[in-house]
């Protein structure tokens, strides 16, 4: 059970596969009233999204949700230019991919001693990490901005990548440690006997075994960075450096005109990669597997 980690020793339960709770949870016949209530709530959630899809296919879209008089892909063809779409998406890719790589690398190094050597600093350190996970990022953007001014790092993609990596590190360390706990120590002990250093054991034995867990961490960080608007909005200003989250404002013309259809089409193109990645995580790894890494305490 993933909620049993109250004692001092971290629970070493293996991550459960996604299917375990589904079968056990159903008791008796499904109730129709529950289904109906659920369907109504689901409808409330999906209605706002219908505007996005319909507007992207409507050459004369407005803020109203309406079936387009004629379906067209004109909005999509109009925005498929390097300045409008490809460069911003490439920048998003550099930012998110780069920060996810840096984060996973650093998180593995940080999680290893936490998972393997039990000192009395572990628990306080993990709480500090958990604490750092949640500090409002909006609160540190003002000082980060002045830090970037002092270090002359404004408008630098690389520096922004590292900053994004740092903000996702606490969460990543937390998750990586929980995944690492489920790799048995005995395997490394065998390697140590054979004379391998602990670094060697980490990279050659532990990391390959926790590949799915690291995949989850990577994708989590990637999705987070991909969707982040505030950080690049503050730190990057030149057009060629802006990721998709910020360049989306280009659809607002100078004189209050908004290209609604193109805005919707661009939003869909921009959202697509993270939706695919999310489906990948929940399909391949199982939703509760990912959650168990994040929430086991």
């Amino acid at each position, binding site marked *: 059970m993933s909620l049993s980690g*109250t004692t001092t020793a971290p629970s070493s339960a293996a991550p459960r596969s996604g299917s375990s*709770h589904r079968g056990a949870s159903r008791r008796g016949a499904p109730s129709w009233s529950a289904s109906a209530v659920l369907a109504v709530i689901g409808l409330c959630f999906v209605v706002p999204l219908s505007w996005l899809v319909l507007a992207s296919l409507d050459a004369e879209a407005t803020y109203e949700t309406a079936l387009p008089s004629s379906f067209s892909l004109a909005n999509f063809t109009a925005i498929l230019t390097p300045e409008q779409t490809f460069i911003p998406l490439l920048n998003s890719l550099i930012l998110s991919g780069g920060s996810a790589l840096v984060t996973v690398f650093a998180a593995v190094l940080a999680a290893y001693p936490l998972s393997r050597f039990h000192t009395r600093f572990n628990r306080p350190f993990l709480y500090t990490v958990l604490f750092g996970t949640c500090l409002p990022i909006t609160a*540190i953007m*003002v000082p980060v901005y002045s830090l970037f001014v002092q270090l002359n790092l404004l408008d630098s993609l690389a520096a922004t990548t590292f900053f994004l990596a740092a903000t996702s590190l606490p969460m990543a360390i937390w998750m990586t440690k929980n995944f690492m706990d489920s790799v048995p120590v005995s395997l490394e002990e065998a390697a140590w006997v054979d004379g391998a250093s602990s670094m060697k054991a980490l990279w050659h034995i532990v990391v390959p075994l926790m590949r799915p867990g690291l995949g989850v961490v990577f994708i989590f960080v990637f999705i987070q960075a991909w969707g982040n608007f505030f950080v690049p909005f503050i730190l990057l200003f030149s057009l060629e450096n802006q990721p998709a989250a910020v360049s989306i404002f280009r659809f607002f013309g100078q004189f209050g005109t908004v290209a609604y259809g193109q805005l919707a089409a661009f939003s869909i193109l921009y959202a697509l990669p993270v939706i695919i990645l999310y489906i990948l995580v929940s399909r391949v790894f199982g*939703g509760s597997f990912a959650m168990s890494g994040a929430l086991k305490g």
Partner: protein
Amino acid sequence: MPALILIGIFLAGPILWSFYGSFTNAALTGANAKNPEWIGFENYVNLFTDPLFPQSLLLTVIFVLVSAVIGQNFLGLGLALLMRRAHRVVAAVVGVCVVAAWVLPEIVAAFVAYAFFFRDGTLNQLTGLVGLPGVDWLFEHPMLAIILANIWRGTAFSMMVYQAALGDVPREVTEAAEIDGAGSAQSLVFVTLPMIRRSIATNLMLITLQTLAVFTLIYVMTAGGPTNRSTTLPIMAYEEAFRYSDIGYGTAIAVVLLIIGAAFSLAYIRLLRERKP
């Protein structure tokens, strides 16, 4: 340790820096940008006498309380409970709909919410269908629109946490309670909820802090307006620092926000530790 270096430079650094910066008159432009001066508690004195501050603080508290602690938390729990009772296909489809709002990038979700509450937007179209007069939601009830939008966007997280937690409650336990004559409401309150209380506490902490930091949604939907009626602390800090170029003052607001966030985290961490079974 690369992790410590990264966290040191980019997280701990700015936090310490912000405490220092809040005591200076640093600005974006002009003489104070080059050589900020130490002005002691002046920013804080100004902040606590600024009539906008208590209002922002109150709006932030309302926003967090209503949209996260009440809205996302209870709706998420309700959805997770309903899903165990409902037909499998319905539960799966609704799950996808709820998660869809959560997976969308922040800024896209914000635009969608804007289009939904806009004067000519979807919500007024819907209320118009049943003959209700249109309301300019973003102008007349900015906080309500923002709160609903945040519930729409964030509930998926609570739902998934509770789905996982309920899946861990052994079936025999609830069955035993029902054999002993407990109704389903009773067995929920006295058996199920106590069993998942660690998940409840963790979830509350995470969504509280996430909601405390919400910027993009509000910035896109109302930009804090009209006349500051939806200016929460993150918006106020941004406005003061970047629009009015008063970095020092903006930093002071950020420090207040950090302290609130820290207080919440500490409270929840204590809660997690003390309530051992």
